[in-house]
């Protein structure tokens, strides 16, 4: 309760080596209802940054040791949006002008007219409010616009979209599974954007990309001095996501120690910062993703079973692109439009032969790889059309990818039937027609080759 009050109360930090200036400004601002901190020198001011955030900071230019200009630079390194008002004597106006050039909000000369001081501080708070509001709106915009539309006409992807929209209305933990590049983060963002948490942030943590030693601090934050180099307190991702969603990507990579800590946080929604004792509560929803076989990881004891059951409440599986080739043409058109807009190019058509190549490629990197190929083609292509030579692979390579490991006729037949089934979205009647066989024969071949609907 006290902390909430502290966060809501507008605050001012006064840094001046003269006690009388600190006292009179402190009293003046306290009567206005501000939370006021005072520091007699730059070092004390820097240490008080841990008691922040300070909405407005008043810095004396001339102080023993580190002067106001240097302090301003240091403060801006810690908080680039820090709103700083320089206090100076008439003789130092040149230095104040220098401070303005380096990002100070304004300066006042001692002694200051009370009316001027009141209006200046009011203006500073108004500017601070606008900056904060602007930042919040940008965040919200990026969250909303970041939730790109999921493109996919295949029955498999329609099912993914339905599941995402349904589970979005709840607070259930979601596990998204699928090969690398299938669009797991996009599905997570779609869930967030369709949930009641959409006006709060979605915070992504790529567990596999953060070194094990830093992951704990990344997730839970740390207190000043928690480890070498931790000069200031830092909030963790769980704290930042209060009200919103935490998306834990590559959850299968986290260590046993982190698995225990994560399990505890998921059960209590409470944690302490690294090196701290204060219990922090945060209201967040968890969405996680992995391309790892977690069941196998449980069997070899590298992933905790209790954490698995805590995370695996509602699973969405995104099939690889090669199992839903009907999605390739709309995805290609989507990426062409996207890059035409960002590269300020006219919309470019796809040559049918090039589209055929794109449909038949195996896409081990899935949608991400397809997007990269289209972006590259958009750079190379000469409008108005993308031709086969604008693609980084040719038909011969695709045929090699799709070839069986031996020359047996049955191996070729299996691949061909699977390809036709995928092309027809596993519509048995249409697939049988395309193959020139009846439906019963097709069923028996599906059974013989062990083909399964994705």
């Amino acid at each position, binding site marked *: 309760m006290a902390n909430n009050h502290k966060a809501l109360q507008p605050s001012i930090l006064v840094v001046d080596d003269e006690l*009388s200036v600190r006292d009179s400004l402190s009293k003046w601002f306290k*009567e206005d209802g501000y939370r006021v901190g005072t520091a007699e020198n730059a070092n004390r001011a820097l240490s008080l940054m841990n008691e922040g955030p300070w909405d407005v900071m008043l810095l004396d230019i001339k102080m023993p040791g580190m002067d106001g200009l240097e302090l301003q630079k240091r403060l801006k390194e810690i908080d680039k949006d820090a709103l700083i008002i320089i206090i100076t004597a008439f003789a130092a106006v040149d230095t104040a002008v220098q401070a303005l050039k380096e990002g100070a909000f304004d300066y006042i000369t001692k002694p200051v*007219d*009370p009316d001027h001081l*009141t209006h200046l501080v009011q203006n500073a708070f108004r500017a601070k409010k606008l900056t904060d509001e602007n930042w919040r709106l940008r965040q919200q915009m990026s969250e909303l616009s970041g939730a790109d539309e999921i493109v996919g006409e295949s029955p498999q992807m329609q099912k993914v979209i339905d599941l995402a929209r349904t589970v979005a209305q709840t607070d259930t933990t979601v596990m998204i599974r699928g090969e690398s590049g299938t669009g797991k983060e996009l599905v997570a963002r779609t869930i967030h954007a369709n949930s009641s948490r959409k006006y709060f942030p979605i915070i992504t943590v790529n567990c596999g990309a953060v070194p094990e030693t830093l992951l704990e601090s990344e997730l839970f934050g740390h207190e000043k001095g928690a480890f070498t180099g931790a000069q200031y307190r830092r909030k963790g991702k769980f704290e930042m996501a209060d009200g919103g969603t935490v998306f834990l990507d590559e959850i299968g990579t986290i260590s046993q120690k982190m698995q225990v800590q994560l399990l505890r946080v998921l059960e209590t929604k409470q944690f302490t910062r690294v090196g701290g004792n204060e219990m922090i509560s945060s209201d967040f929803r968890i969405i996680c993703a992995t391309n790892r076989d977690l069941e196998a990881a449980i069997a070899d004891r590298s992933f905790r079973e209790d954490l698995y059951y805590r995370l695996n409440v509602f699973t969405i599986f995104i099939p690889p692109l090669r199992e839903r080739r009907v999605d390739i043409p709309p995805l290609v058109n989507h990426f062409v439009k996207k890059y035409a807009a960002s590269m300020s190019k006219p919309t470019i058509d796809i040559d049918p032969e090039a589209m055929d190549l794109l449909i038949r490629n195996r896409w081990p990197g899935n949608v991400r790889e397809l997007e990269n190929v289209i972006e590259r083609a958009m750079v190379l292509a000469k409008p108005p059309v993308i031709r086969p030579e604008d693609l980084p692979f040719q038909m011969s390579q695709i045929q090699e990818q799709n070839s069986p490991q031996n020359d047996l006729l049955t191996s070729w037949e299996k691949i061909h039937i699977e390809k036709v089934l995928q092309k027809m979205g596993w519509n048995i009647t249409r697939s049988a027609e395309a193959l020139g066989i009846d439906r019963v024969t097709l069923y028996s071949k599906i059974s013989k080759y062990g083909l399964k609907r994705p």
Partner: protein
Amino acid sequence: MSSILIVAISPIDRSLLDPLVEPLTRAFGPRVEVSRSQTLEGSFAFNVSRNQYGSTPLISALLDRFDDFDGRILGVTSGDLFVPVLTYVFGEAQLDGKVAVVSSHRLNDELYGLGADRKLLHLRLLKESVHELGHTFGLLHCNDYLCVMHSSTGVEEIDMKTERLCPECRGKLVSNTAG
């Protein structure tokens, strides 16, 4: 509610003091009086280079002088007051403390090139007295521009507000003084 003692600080136009008693009694309580026997000589707080009196040393001196007094002290002077970082102040108070000082110097319309207006001067001094005493009872600045606790840095703003506390500040005053 504790009693309030009004103390003259030289230089002072003594005729300003008695008219404060009745309205301050209405605002704060039954026992408000002007000290007849005690006057604080303000010259020690005079700053030659600024040609003003430091309000903070005046507060310290009143605290020492009335150490045994169990109530609020309102020091009133006709001298121009300042704190080091500001060009002037109409008054200063110990927030949630014992002593407040106010100055009539900048409340006088003659200082602004206008004709003397004693009635207006009395009213302005009353507003600033209630305002600074309000701080000694723990009241902060109020957003209601009619409330006497609204912050004023010019006489025009003092004239806009009333000499009364808004209901919210009145409630806080009662709650702060209940214990």
